[in-house]
């Protein structure tokens, strides 16, 4: 198995690692960098728990090789909260009561972040299209939708 030196920017900080070719981005984030917010729910791109932002686009980290991410910027859930407190989207998820077991939450929050960055005033259709590939077994989704709507309203209010 070949080994490769990859350089990524992870949550704004440059990271250089030697990785095996078959290591996924998810594995390198979790095992190499202890960024355990992204989860493996299925390993096959079906559930969304592994979602991270790759150059601003939400992707399934379990289906991206670490070597493919060489030279890219990766944003994980850990990169959202700042010293002064949670990101407004994170706060909206708290206030809308959208967390239960929490396993789908990092992926959902990042998908919402990517959506609101592109489309600050999303329709319900936009929300479902952006988050439609995220499974949640606990909430039944309605509080999750409400969290994204709340985040959008608050962002618009400034």
């Amino acid at each position, binding site marked *: 198995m070949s080994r490769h030196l990859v350089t990524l920017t992870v949550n704004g900080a440059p990271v250089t690692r030697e990785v095996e070719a078959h290591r996924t981005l998810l594995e390198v984030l979790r095992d190499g960098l202890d960024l355990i917010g*992204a989860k493996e729910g299925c390993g096959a791109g079906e559930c969304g728990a592994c979602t991270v932002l790759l150059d601003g686009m939400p992707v399934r980290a379990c289906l991206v090789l670490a070597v493919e991410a060489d030279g890219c910027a990766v944003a994980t859930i850990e990169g959202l909260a700042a010293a002064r407190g949670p990101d407004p989207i994170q706060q909206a998820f708290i206030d809308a009561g959208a*967390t239960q*077991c929490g*396993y789908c939450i990092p992926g959902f929050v990042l998908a919402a972040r990517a959506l609101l960055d592109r489309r600050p005033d999303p329709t319900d259709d936009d929300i479902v299209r952006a988050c439609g*590939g995220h499974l*949640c077994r606990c909430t*039944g989704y309605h509080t*999750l939708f409400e969290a994204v709507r709340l985040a959008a309203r608050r962002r618009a209010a400034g």
Partner: protein
Amino acid sequence: MEQRCIGTSVPRVDALEKVTGEARYVADLSFPGMLHAKLLRSPHAHARIVRIEKAAAAAMPGVHAVATGKDLPWWVGECIRDQRPMAVETARFAGEPVAAVVASSEDAALAALEAIRVDYEPLPAVLDARAALAPGAPLVHPDLGTYHVLPGFRPSPGTNVFHHYFVKAGDVTKGLARAAVVVEQEYEFPHLMHTALENHGCLARYTAGGRLEVHAGAQSPFTVRNVVAEAFGLPRHRVSVRGGYLGGGFGGKSDATVEPLTCALARLCPGRWVRLILDREESFVGSVLGRGFRGRYRYGLTRRGRLVAADIDLLMAGGAYSWTAVNILPCAGHNGIGPYFVPDLEIHARGLYTNTPPVGAYRGYGHPDSQFMAERHMDLCARAVGMDPVAFRLKNLLGKSGKKNPLGQRVDSSAGDLEGCIKLVAQDIGMATSPEGIRAREAEPSAVSRPAVAVGRGLACLMKSPGQATNAFTTVVLKFNEDGTVHVISAVSEMGQGVHTAIAQIAADLIEIPVEKVYVPQGTDTDYSPYDWQTVASRATWMQGRAIAAAWEKARKELRATAAKAFGVPVAKVDYRRGTLFVRGDESRALPLEKVCHGYVFPDGHAVGGPVLVAGHYVPHATYADEQTGRGELATSWTFGCQGAEVEVDLRTGEVTVLRFSSAIDVGRAVNPELAKAQVIGAVVFGLGGALTETVTWGPRGEIRNASMTDYKVPTPEDVRGIDFRVHLLETPVPGDPVGSRCLAEHGAVAVAPAIANAVADATGVDFFDVPLAAERVFLALQARAAQAPSPKPPRKAKGAR
């Protein structure tokens, strides 16, 4: 107790950790020098393991141990000890582990796994309960007679029956013979898979000093300790099990699944942490399944619609090992008629070993399984006597009558306002029978049938009591800190339900301090946490509330005693209110809690009293089932409710769209209304999966063909976005309970399937006696019906009112 915090929707205490990604789950733990385990699984449903060649694997780089079942000479199982950590001579289900590699990396473990050669001799398999019951069926456990079995469980050696629960009241044969109308039907609730987003996992280390340390993704750390200690013959205090956040449980993590095996492998690698995390496919086939019931219901009724007799026969395809399945049978059994009164009844619930993955607790624990059948049967009976299904249910309700349930317990309106629940749901979905209800619904826009789309409505009731051991204690510790804040230490597991928030609210109100002063530490450690039986059965909030009340009584005594010394008065003259201790009749002589709860220091410096640290426990009064009748104090708390659906069926594709889903549940007291409502909606959607799209597809060799999220379809955001959810939380408090709350976590899932099936029958005239009502099945049923009746059915009534 004045309830100031209880009943308010304080924000969850764990939300921040979860939205920032700080929350750790078992797969997020890592220790220096940690080893990784991977499992080789049988492809056969039933096979003799002739030979396993592992020498090549053992020699590969990074490999610390290669184990087969023979290397792990321990027995696992509560109730019926019928399982080994891995198959020994016989693999009993496709997916059962037969060999394990422990290595320095997952890659090394997987590579070594590929080098293991297993020779199997396939054996005839039984893949469903009826086949397992048939005379001459291959035996899954030929040695059933040699297993250790706890009293109260009745396996039949020489057969595949691992338990037979029954309950009898009156004389069902006479009752049916006398009945003017008899309605009989067979039903099935096939297996489901939990599909919690977090896979199963465990880390274990067997120390040089002979202690076993475990991090388990488990709902019940004390049960894991129990099972593991018993298996290895270790005293309890040499096993410490820690539990943290769970990424969903739903019952699938409530007993022990991967923990015994992980601990067994740790024993082979002393001193090192061994990590076993299942991947998604393994979580499907290698943990536990849910449901798996067949039932035959035969009811006798009068022509005027009164139920007089019920003869119910239930069979469960319990899987290859029974100890996680066996207790589901009494629950499916004694609650199997639903919340109705029937004087003459006999209910049998038999568990069959089958060569399929073991069944375990699955949200609702037998209640959705048999009440799907009971509630379909109520609609069939109503139809048979020409009665409206709502009126028929109201006529036969158990609650208000003060009559006895199948267990012989008297149930009256103090157990819950089921009639109120039914009326609210009926009104929501347009099935109200009262003039006001009809008027209220007509004021709203109503879905109408149109060409190729049929609209229908249906409802179903639910009743659930917690299925738990008679000695299922819960304990809690109150630990007062120097500043008057309080730790409430509990071993309940947080898996999404928000239980720590509810506990904090209860403690705050009992102690009469602001909830901000209460801290419920997250995470359990059997070395430090007070004993709790299991976080299951929706029991945590209710039972913890009683335990906290018991603990607070002790704490109050101690506080008053210390304050009495401080004031120099008899204890009887000291009162406590809202964080203050004072002398009755002279309230200027008062001390705040923080001056007393860590002892009191006199002006000259000497201290009296001490840090207040108290424990309280609770268990409801319960008994075993009577050997002859099956009756007894098995049900210790009641939650009643009703659920209903308004659906649209696209007749061209069979697709069922839920327009509105209403749930009305008597929760006793909603400790945190928003959390309660969120639980109910989550449970409804969970139930909709089982009702509409989830099903296990079995292959010809007894393997699960759809053990992936690609092909096991749980509800997605798109599926639920248009549903108008209604949730009503009624409150008939539990008599004599300081909080008054009833069990709730599972209940939103209990009546979903029959409500949907009843609504689809109303829309289309097609009766389903099983689930799921997937588009293809509905369509093909419609097509088959059309083939039998060439003249088209008249269109369903367009208007909402009946």
